[in-house]
């Protein structure tokens, strides 16, 4: 398992994302509701870039005309065909067991801890006063 520093936490505003290339793949890191999530930046349907997805609420309904919202901003509607994926676990809405996007564990570490290593040297110079998003592949 490799640990990659992909951004300072302040680089990705809430509701935003950043795409990084890790080990030959594009990975998209989202910031939602105070947490960071990392997914392969490719929809399993037809390869659309998930960083262009709409970030929306998790929408359920017990009956026609009633709209229940939760976890606002943590569901992705793919930029092309609108397939819904949960940022947290990569599961599709319509077939959570069999249709998923690969996710990567994310940890946040402060610069001081990080300076002690180990991590894959990206282009980041680590400053002890900042917090960093680490994606584990």
């Amino acid at each position: 398992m490799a640990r990659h520093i992909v951004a300072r936490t302040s680089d990705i505003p809430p509701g935003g994302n950043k795409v990084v290339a890790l080990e030959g793949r594009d990975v998209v890191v989202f910031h939602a509701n105070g947490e960071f999530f990392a997914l392969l930046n490719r929809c399993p349907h037809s390869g659309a870039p998930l960083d262009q997805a709409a970030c929306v609420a998790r929408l359920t309904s017990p009956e026609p005309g009633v709209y229940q919202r939760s976890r606002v901003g943590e569901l992705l509607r793919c930029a092309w065909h609108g397939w819904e994926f949960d940022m947290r676990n990569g599961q599709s809405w319509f077939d959570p067991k069999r249709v998923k996007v690969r996710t990567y564990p994310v940890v946040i570490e402060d610069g001081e801890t990080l300076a002690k290593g180990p991590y894959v040297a990206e282009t980041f110079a680590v400053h002890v006063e900042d917090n960093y998003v680490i994606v584990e592949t």
Partner: protein
Amino acid sequence: MSDVIDRPLLDQEASAKTRLRIIDCDVHPSLHAKSDLNPFLAKRWQEHLKTYGDHLRTPYMGTTPYPRSSPLIARRDAWPPTGGPPGSDLDFMRKQYLDPHDVEFGVLQVLDMFIFSQQNLECGAAIQRAVNEWQLAHWTSRDPRLKASILVGQDDTAAAVAEIERCAKVGQYVQINVSPRANEPLGRRRYWPIYARAEELGLPIGIHTGGYGGHPPAGGGWPSYYAEEHQSNAHTMAATLTSLVLEGVPEQFPDLKIVFIEGGFGWISSTMWRMDQHFEHFRSEVPHLKRRPSEYVREHFWFTTQPIDEPDEARHLRSLIEWVGVDRLLFSSDYPHWDFDDPRFAFKTPLSEAERIKIFQTNARAVYKL
């Protein structure tokens, strides 16, 4: 649906023996703004569009009463960084779509301005001319890969034929387009002068999904949801196909080619079976038909592939292709719309090399004389 965690997408191109340049039979350029047409419009009509605007059989000026699931029906990543709506920037279209997918030819379908459905027929005639000129000035003259279509408001047949004549003299157009949601089903005789001219000129008729004919999407009434209305596009295509066949359009115009665009192809085989099943029962009503309906379909009609059907089992898609016939299919992407088919991944069943070449190349070459 097979397990798709990191499953390599069935990339037809990567597995192909040769890299294939593709012909895309449905690409949508769009206006930056309606005023883009002003250079091609008389002052009278510029004023008219600024004040009265469109007059269509729909309640709203600015939108459809069935809101789409994404802005401007488009892929969210297709908005050009320089501004303007998806499909309005040729450079971005090249960069995002035409170049990376090695598009040899893209046949343009302009949906802006709803030419086919303008209630004010004089206005419609002015707009259609402007759009037909705009295609050449802004698109096909700047990128020879792109091919223009003569768009005509079918319900003013005289004006439509006049516009066809004008464009035919200019040359550079590969088909004549009408809408399947017209005042009447497209097989009806009032539209025959358009078909006659198309046949004489050797240009195919293109029929693209959509339009505001004013009829509800279903015989049973108006649906509540876009989910229903979106699927009704296939229904419109089936009704249009039966009208053209039963009225005897291919019988009357044996050299005419007709292309159905953005209807997909899942509905075709059952429609042919149904037409044939009931042919004997209703034969006395249509004595002008000399052949079984499905025979007319197999000789005179082509169908663009998008939106492709996605059965759970890939082999079912194979059956669908074989029932329609590989010869009838023309690849289309529908770029930049949301339900776009990526040429690399759209066919989730393997195609033989010969089939790929037909669907992505030679069928379209023959129909559009490319």
